[in-house]
C-alpha cells in the first residue's frame, strides 16, 4: 500500500498502491552513458520520499516511484498488470503453499554483488522482523514464521542453492507469485545490512536505473537517476536517464508542464480538472486506475464504542437501508459535476484495471441511481423499525473530500427525505484514530489502492473476518469461504470467478457502499513520446523517448 504525500487529498483518498514500474518494452539497451548535457533525460514529477529508500520501509508513492526505477524484483508487471519474470527464471509450485523460486543467473547490483537467492531471502527476513520496524512488514504475513507481535524469523524461507530458494506459506495463496512484483519483495545487496541508514540515503539497486552518483538525492528538490548499464531485464530504458523533481503542490508541477519544464506529470491538480484535456489535447491522460472509493457503515455495532449509533444498519433492516442509500446516490452526476469526469462510477468493489473485473456482477444494479426503488426499500426498512436521527459520513477535512461528501449526502437527503450531512474531522490522523479505535459513531470515508494487480487484494484485507483493514468489522462466513477458496485455487479464471461470487454477496450486504474508481489523470509535454500509464497509475518511465 502506497499513499501519496502531497495533495493531502490523495493521502486520504488513496490508501494503498504498489508502484511497480512495469515493463513490456523490449529493445536495445542504449544506456551506459552517464547523464550529461543534451542527452535524453526525462523529467517527471514526484515528491520527497517520506522514508529512507529501503524497499520494505517505503509505502508511499514518493519513494515508491524511485525504488521501482532503481530496483528489479522477481517479477514485474506489464501496463495491464500482467506479471512477467524480471529477476526470476521460474516460480514453481504444486500446492500454492510451497514455492520454488529460481533466480536468473548473471544479474548484478550496481556495486558488483550478484543478485542471488540470498539477496532476496536476506531482504525479506530484514523486512519482516518486528524490531526492524519496517512499514511494509505485513507483506510477509503469509510466510511461515511471520509474527506481528514478536521478533520471529521467516522459517518458511530456505535457500536451497545459490540461485534457488523455497518459500513456504502458512496457508495456500495462489496469488503469491503475483505479489512478488511489489517493492517490498525487492532484493538487497549485502552492503545494505552493513549500514542500513547510509544505504537508505544512497541505495544500491539492480533495476533499470541507478542513482547518478553520491548526492544524487537532493532532499526536497529532486533525484537524478542514470541508466544502469548492467540491467538486462524486460524494462530496458529507452532514454538516457530520469530526473524526478519533487513538487510540494501539483499546481506547481502543472505550471511546469505547461511551460515545458516538465516532461511527464502523473497527477493533475484538482483545480485543472475542467481544463487539462483542452490544455493538453491528446497529451492528456484520463483513465481508470486501481483505486476504489467508498464509504463504510460498520457492520458489527458490538465492536464499536457506541453500538446504538448503528442500530439501524444491522440485520434485514440494515441490508434494506444500505441498498436504499446506495441507490439514492447519483454517481454519474457527481463524478461529472464534482470531479469533471476524473472518476468512474463503481460497478463492483475492485477496479477495471484488474484482471477479473466485470461490470456484470449479479446485483450490481444496486450501484445504479434509482430513486423510486431506494424510497421503496427505505420504506420497507421503516416498517421494520422507524429510522431516527440523521445519516452522516465522517471524513478528514484536510483531504479535499468536502465536495463529494456534500454531494453524496445531499443526494441521499433529497431522495430519501432524511437528514444527511458530512461530518468533517480536521486532520487525517484524527479521523484514522476514530476509525482504528472504533470510537467513530457515523459512516466514514474509505478508499483502497491496490498493492498488486489481483482481485483478492481489494477484497481479502477489507472484507474477510478480522482482516487487517476491515474497519467496519464486517463478517460473513460465506464471503470468508469464497475468499479462502479463491486464494487456494491455482486456475486464475476459476479463482476470479470465486472472488466475483464473494462480491455478489458483498453487493447484498454492502459493508461499504462503493462510490467510484479514481482515474489516473496526467499529461506529458511535446518533448516526449511513448508515454503509457500502467495499471496502477504510474507512467512506464523506461519506455519514454525524447522526440527532439
Amino acid at each position, binding site marked *: 500500500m502506497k499513499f501519496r504525500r502531497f495533495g493531502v487529498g490523495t493521502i486520504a483518498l488513496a490508501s494503498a498502491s504498489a508502484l511497480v514500474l512495469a515493463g513490456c518494452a523490449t529493445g536495445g539497451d542504449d544506456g551506459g552513458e552517464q547523464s550529461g548535457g543534451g542527452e535524453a533525460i526525462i523529467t517527471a514529477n514526484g515528491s520527497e520520499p517520506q522514508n529512507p529508500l529501503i524497499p520494505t520501509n517505503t509505502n508511499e508513492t514518493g519513494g515508491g516511484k524511485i525504488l521501482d526505477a532503481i530496483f528489479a524484483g522477481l517479477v514485474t508487471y506489464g501496463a495491464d498488470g500482467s506479471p512477467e519474470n524480471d529477476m526470476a527464471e521460474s516460480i514453481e509450485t504444486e500446492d500454492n503453499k510451497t514455492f520454488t523460486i529460481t533466480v536468473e543467473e548473471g544479474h548484478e547490483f550496481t556495486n558488483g554483488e550478484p543478485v542471488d537467492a540470498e539477496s532476496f531471502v536476506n531482504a525479506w527476513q530484514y523486512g519482516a522482523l518486528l524490531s526492524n520496524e519496517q512499514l511494509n512488514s505485513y507483506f510477509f504475513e503469509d510466510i511461515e514464521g511471520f509474527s506481528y507481535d514478536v521478533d520471529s524469523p521467516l522459517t518458511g524461507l530456505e535457500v536451497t542453492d545459490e540461485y534457488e530458494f523455497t518459500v513456504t506459506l502458512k496457508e495456500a495463496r495462489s496469488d503469491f507469485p503475483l505479489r512478488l512484483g511489489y517493492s517490498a519483495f525487492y532484493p538487497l545487496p549485502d552492503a545494505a545490512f552493513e549500514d542500513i541508514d547510509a544505504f537508505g540515503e544512497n541505495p544500491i539497486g539492480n533495476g533499470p536505473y541507478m542513482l547518478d552518483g553520491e548526492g544524487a538525492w537532493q532532499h*526536497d528538490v529532486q533525484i537524478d537517476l542514470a541508466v544502469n548499464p548492467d540491467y538486462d531485464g524486460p524494462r530496458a530504458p529507452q532514454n538516457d536517464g530520469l530526473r524526478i523533481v519533487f513538487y510540494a503542490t501539483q499546481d*506547481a508541477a502543472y505550471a*511546469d508542464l505547461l511551460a515545458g519544464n516538465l516532461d511527464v506529470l502523473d497527477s493533475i491538480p484538482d483545480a485543472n480538472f475542467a481544463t487539462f484535456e483542452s490544455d493538453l489535447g491528446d497529451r492528456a491522460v484520463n483513465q481508470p486506475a486501481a483505486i476504489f472509493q467508498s464509504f463504510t457503515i460498520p457492520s458489527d455495532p458490538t465492536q464499536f464504542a457506541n453500538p446504538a449509533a448503528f442500530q439501524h444498519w444491522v440485520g434485514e433492516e440494515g441490508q434494506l437501508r444500505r441498498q436504499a442509500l446506495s441507490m439514492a446516490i447519483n454517481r454519474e452526476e457527481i463524478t461529472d459535476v464534482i470531479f469533471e469526469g476524473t472518476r468512474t462510477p463503481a460497478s463492483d468493489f475492485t477496479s477495471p484495471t484488474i484482471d477479473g473485473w466485470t461490470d456484470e456482477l449479479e446485483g450490481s444494479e444496486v450501484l445504479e441511481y434509482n430513486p423510486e426503488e431506494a424510497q421503496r426499500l427505505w420504506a420497507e426498512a421503516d416498517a421494520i423499525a422507524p429510522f431516527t436521527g440523521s445519516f452522516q459520513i465522517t471524513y478528514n477535512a484536510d483531504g479535499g473530500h468536502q465536495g463529494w461528501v456534500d454531494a453524496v449526502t445531499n443526494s441521499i437527503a433529497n431522495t430519501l427525505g432524511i437528514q444527511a450531512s458530512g461530518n468533517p474531522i480536521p*486532520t487525517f490522523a484524527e479521523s*484514522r484514530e476514530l476509525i482504528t479505535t472504533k470510537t467513530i459513531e457515523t459512516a466514514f470515508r474509505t*478508499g483502497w489502492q491496490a498493492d498488486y494487480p489481483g482481485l483478492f487484494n481489494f477484497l481479502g484485507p477489507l472484507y474477510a473476518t478480522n482482516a*487487517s483493514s476491515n474497519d467496519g468489522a464486517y463478517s460473513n462466513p460465506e464471503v470468508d469461504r469464497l475468499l479462502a477458496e479463491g486464494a487456494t485455487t491455482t486456475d486464475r479464471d476459476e479463482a476470479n470467478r470465486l472472488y466475483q461470487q464473494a462480491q455478489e454477496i458483498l453487493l447484498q450486504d454492502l459493508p461499504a457502499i462503493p462510490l467510484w474508481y479514481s482515474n489516473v489523470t496526467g499529461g506529458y509535454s511535446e518533448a516526449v513520446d511513448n508515454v503509457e500509464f500502467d495499471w496502477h497509475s504510474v507512467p512506464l518511465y523506461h519506455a519514454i523517448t525524447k522526440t527532439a
Partner: protein
Amino acid sequence: MAYYIVRRLLQAIPVLIGTTFLIYFMVFAMPGNPLLTLFGDRTPPPALLERLEQQYLLDQPFIIQYLNYLGNVVTGNFGISFSGQSVNDILARTFPVTLRLAFLAITIEMVIALSVGLISGLRKGGIFDASALVVSLLLISLPIFVLCFIAQFFFAVQLGWFSPTVGADASIPKLILPAIVLALFVVATAIRLTRASVIETSTADFVRTAYSKGLGRRRVVPVHILRNSLIPVTTQLGADFGLLIVGATVTEGIFNVPGVGNTLYQAIIRGERPTVVSFVTVMVLLYLIVNILIDLIYAVLDPRIRYVK
C-alpha cells in the same frame, strides 16, 4: 552598546523557552495519533505501532516528551523527523533558501516603498499619489495566492520570462519572481507609511530651517526628509521580515521553493513534534535577531538615539 546587545540576547532566552513550550504543547494537543498517517488508510499492526510510539516517545506524558526535546536542543540536537532525517539537516538546507527569498523580497519592498512613498509624500494629492493609492489598495486586498497564480501564469507560463517553479539550486535569479510577489503582498503598508512619514517630516521645523539656510531640494529631500522619515518604515520592514518568513508558505508551495514553508506545512499535517517545534523556534530566533538589528539601525538613522546603560 555591547552591553545592550548582550542584554537583549539574554532577554531572548525566556522568550525562546516559552515559545518551544507553547508550540510543543499545541502540537501535542493536536488530536489523533500522528503515526497512523504513516500507514495511509491501512490499519497498522498494533505491535509495530507500539514500537514506533516508543521510538518517538509518543507513549510518554507531555512533560517527559518536552523535557527530553529541550534537553536534546540544548546539546544542539533538534531530533529526528518521521522520515528518519536529522532535523538539524532539514533546518540547514531549508532556512538558507527561505532567508534568501525573504531578504530579496525585503529589498524589493524597500526600494518600491521608499521611492513610491517619497514621491507620493512630496507631491501629495497629485496624480502619482492618487494612482499609488489605488494600486496599493488593490494589492493589499488581493490574497497572496491569487497574486502568485497570476504572476506564475502570465510571466512564466504565457510569456516565458521566468521559470514557473524554482526547484534545484534556488539561486537569486530564480527567486526573483516569487520575491516580487511576496514584496507586492507587503509593500502597500510600507508605501502608505513612508508617504505619511514624509508628509509629516516635510512640515517639520528643521526642514523649513534647512530650506531657509539656502539648501536645495537635492540636499534636503534625501538627508533631512527621507532620513528622518525612515524610523517608522524601518520598524515596519522588521515586522514584515517575520511575516515574509512565515507567510512564504503559500508562495513556496506555488513556486515550488524548497524552503521552510513546505517542510513546516508537511510536518504540521503529520504532527511531527520535533520538526514543527524546531522550525518555529528558529523562526522566533530569527525574528528576535532582526528586531535587535532594527533597534541598532535606529541609532544609525537618528544620532539622538543612544544605547547606553
